[in-house]
């Protein structure tokens, strides 16, 4: 509760709403004590006095009644009626919702169908029908407004109750022989009340507005009694000649409803977990770049090279170092594997290349990505956009989520091509069919008009590959493209990629956590752990004689077919959380060889043998061995 209030206090607008609302309520409460003129005493000779005139601060209305006094009394009445309607609607609605949710089954069905029917009504109309039957009057308006809001509460509270009614503590209460009524009162209600209060805080503004509306129409409070709505209704005939009589009550309604809405928004925001987690932050078109040090020099004659790349996630005051200085490079016709556990930073590394890390919260804080010698980190949006998908293309994991669900695959393929090359629609369609053919999708002429949900996982993955090939790129970055697929489809897709590499001289960066895939496809492999490369070298050398303890442990986790009863050794412990990286080797905590020297200073990636690099002071193999 305290934390919630604190959160609310941090939201300045909500606090403003709270203060304004508090003042209005206070004024309404002390109205009878204030030295005001009688709100109902008419004084026709002094009608339509302007505001700020003597003896009438806000002027007088068409019958010469003091507007300030009427305003305060009217506010009091409007608030009272609005609150009363909210409490009635919340109580009855909650009762109905709890009964429906608690008993379930047929009771629930009947009640909720009724609620649906009521909600099918345009709801001011329903209120009008109720007032028509009961007759105009403030009490009847209150009943009507409360009645039309009951379904809203019933539906919300039912949803919550259904969730609670099957929890263990309710079952326990049932088993202990409590009556239903007692369970509802002692077990359910305390859990539901906060939701009721929140629902009230967001609807009370509406209710005040609606009762004011009915009074405005002449169906609510009857003269001489006046709430804000009927004041406005009476003032309407003098709108043009004496607008102040309309503005005064109208502005008051606006102030009250706005304060309540601000407060309600604040309450809702304070409770919304998505806002706290940043799940509702808009990712920018390119990743934010805040380099603290100078960008590294480009290395000549490489197609794509990452130099000391650092990408972090800044969430509130925490800094997650997802990528902590990564060097990688690929040349035409080459396939580089990047391997590591989930959370090792391999995907973030891949996305950083084209500035596709969601930002906020992602920030590239250092290093460079050189494409043909030009740094892409911090490049202008248009430069990055022109390369994305044209020269450097991505294939993502989970093609159901990564393809747009509402466009046909043909449209998406065509778009990929047309984003970079102006070709006409029919040529683009033919191109799309060719692309589908090139990834060996059967019946491409029909498939081009399919939606992603109409295809199998393997098909969709091929579409993802076809999309990456749309502009014959030089580099393809494949982020676990086969993880979600079964092995036969996986094998087909891998050989497809391999063919493309040979035929078109593609450079591929292949991200995976599967050594089998790496062995099949990649000449070189880099092993990542906690945002850093811990070992890099030719695939063959690393598979035969892993130098870093992590690599060897990782390989020991892979079962092999036909090798009998080899012991599968899971790595004990978990990878470190990247906002609290330990000093020294990040793997030390889980390493069987770790000693004190592993936990100090910065351990560099050093050459180990002819073509290997390892980040370890006690490698598994001697350097000479690795040479051979």
């Amino acid at each position, binding site marked *: 509760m305290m934390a919630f209030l604190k959160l609310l206090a941090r939201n300045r607008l909500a606090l403003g709403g709270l203060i304004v609302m508090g003042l209005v309520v206070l004024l309404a409460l002390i109205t009878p004590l204030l030295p005001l003129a009688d709100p109902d005493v008419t004084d026709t000779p002094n009608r339509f006095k302007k505001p700020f005139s003597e003896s009438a601060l806000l002027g007088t209305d068409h019958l010469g009644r003091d507007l300030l006094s009427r305003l305060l009394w009217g506010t009091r009445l409007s608030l009272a009626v609005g609150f009363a309607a909210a409490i009635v609607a919340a109580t009855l609605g909650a009762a109905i919702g709890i009964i429906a949710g608690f008993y379930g089954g047929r009771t629930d069905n009947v009640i909720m*169908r*009724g609620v649906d*029917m009521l909600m*099918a*009504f*345009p*709801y*001011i*109309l329903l209120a*009008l*029908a*109720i007032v*028509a*039957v*009961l*007759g*105009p009057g403030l009490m009847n308006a209150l009943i009507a407004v409360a009645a039309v809001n009951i379904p809203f509460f019933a539906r919300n509270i039912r949803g919550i109750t259904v969730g609670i009614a099957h929890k263990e503590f309710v079952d326990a209460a049932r088993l202990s022989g409590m009556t239903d009524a007692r369970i509802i009162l002692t077990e359910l209600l305390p859990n539901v009340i906060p939701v009721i209060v929140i629902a009230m805080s967001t609807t009370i503004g509406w209710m005040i*507005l609606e009762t004011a*509306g009915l009074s*405005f*129409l*002449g169906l609510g409070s009857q003269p001489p009694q006046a709430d804000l*709505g009927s004041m*406005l209704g009476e003032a*309407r005939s003098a*709108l*043009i000649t004496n607008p102040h009589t*309309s503005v005064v009550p*109208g502005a008051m*309604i*606006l102030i009250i*409803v*706005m304060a309540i*809405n601000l407060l309600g*928004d604040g309450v809702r925001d304070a409770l919304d977990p998505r806002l706290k987690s940043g*799940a*509702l*932050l*808009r*990712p920018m*078109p390119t990743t934010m770049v805040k380099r603290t040090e100078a960008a590294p020099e480009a290395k000549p004659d490489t197609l794509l090279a990452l130099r000391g790349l650092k990408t972090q996630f800044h969430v509130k005051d925490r800094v997650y170092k997802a990528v902590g200085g990564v060097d990688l490079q690929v040349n035409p016709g080459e396939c580089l594997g990047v391997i590591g556990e989930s959370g090792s930073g391999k995907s973030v590394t891949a996305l950083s290349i084209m500035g*596709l890390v*969601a930002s906020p919260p992602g920030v590239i804080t250092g290093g460079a990505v050189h494409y043909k010698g030009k740094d892409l980190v911090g490049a202008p*949006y248009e430069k990055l*956009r*022109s390369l*994305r*998908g044209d020269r450097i*293309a991505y294939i*993502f994991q989970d093609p159901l*989520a*990564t*393809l*747009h*669900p*509402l466009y046909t695959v043909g449209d998406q393929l065509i*778009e990929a091509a047309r*984003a970079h090359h102006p070709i006409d629609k029919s040529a683009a369609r033919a191109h799309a069919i060719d692309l589908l053919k090139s990834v060996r999708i059967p019946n491409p002429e029909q498939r081009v008009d399919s939606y992603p*949900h109409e295809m199998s996982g393997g098909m969709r993955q091929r579409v993802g590959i076809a*999309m990456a090939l749309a502009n014959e790129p030089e580099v393809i970055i494949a982020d676990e493209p086969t993880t979600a697929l079964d092995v036969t489809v996986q094998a087909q897709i891998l050989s497809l990629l391999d063919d493309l590499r040979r035929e078109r001289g593609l450079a591929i960066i292949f991200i995976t956590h599967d050594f089998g895939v790496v062995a099949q496809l990649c000449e070189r492999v880099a092993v990542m752990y906690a945002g850093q490369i811990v070992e890099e070298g030719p695939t063959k050398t690393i598979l035969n004689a892993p130098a870093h303890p992590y690599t060897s442990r990782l390989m020991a986790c892979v079962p092999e077919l036909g090798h009998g009863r080899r012991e599968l050794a899971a790595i004990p412990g978990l990878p470190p959380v990247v906002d609290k990286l330990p000093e020294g080797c990040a793997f030390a905590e889980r390493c069987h060889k770790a000693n004190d020297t592993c936990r100090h200073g910065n351990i560099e990636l050093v050459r180990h043998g002819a073509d290997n690099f390892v980040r370890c002071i006690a490698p598994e193999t001697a350097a000479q061995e690795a040479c051979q």
Partner: protein
Amino acid sequence: MAGYILKRLISAIPVLFGISIIVFIIMAMIPGDPATAILGSYATPENVEKLNRDLGLDKPMVQRYFIWLGNMLQGDFGRSFSLNRAVLDEVLDRFGATLILAGTAFVLCSILGIAAGVVSAARQYGLADKAITFAVLLGISIPSFFLGMMMILIFAVKLRWFPVSGMWPIYGARDLPALISHLTLPAFALAVVATGVIARLSRSAMLEVLRQDFIRTARAKGVHERSVIWRHALRAAMVSIIPVLGVQAGFVLSGAVYIEMVFQWPGVGRMLVGAILKRDILLVQGGVVFVAACYVLFNIAVDVAQSLLDPRIKT
């Protein structure tokens, strides 16, 4: 497609039944003698007795409901005592005016609301977002009847851009320009609240979609950001915006009551308020049933639009 529309139409039948039952129950709550209430306080005793017989008030509730429903299905909504006219004729006459007003307001709030929401989401926490968020807060907090009055004061009285009230000029041609100039203020006044609600929802729907993987895919393809927002994200967000448009259509349709009163618009809403004040129960009942039924049909149109947008919905 035709099959789907038919299916939805059939599924509307129970809803229409439900609505008729609700109206019947409400009407049965009339305190005192219903015949007197229906005929007004000046009715002769003979007429009251005849009506009691016609309504079958001596019969049980369920039977009475079916008599009532049967009459309505045959287009017999009864006679309004205050107008001395068949209820259905009066409602149909008035409904056209309401439809023009509410329809225009609905188009306005949909376009403005969605556009504001998209811009707001695309520039989250930027200046445009803050301005729109504030305008939206103001829009959903201002009573539409007060807004209408202020608009009359500013745009009709002070600036003289539009007529003060009514649907047609008292003298002069009843042509489209005349209608548009009369329609502008009330349509905007009616649209404001719904615009705010739609803008709010569109913003959060867009923000949710912009985090999805397929948006990253579109960016990775090199699609221009403009197209990412308006083509990819908005299309996906429309799936959750369209149902809200349906709900808001109900608010616009029934909220027209206030605007019709403020602008002297000759629609069903104004007719209803007049009928309630004159205690002309049958006229109220006819208007309510008719508008509610139209709203149900409109919601079918919303469902059909949704199925056209989202191929995942089985048609």
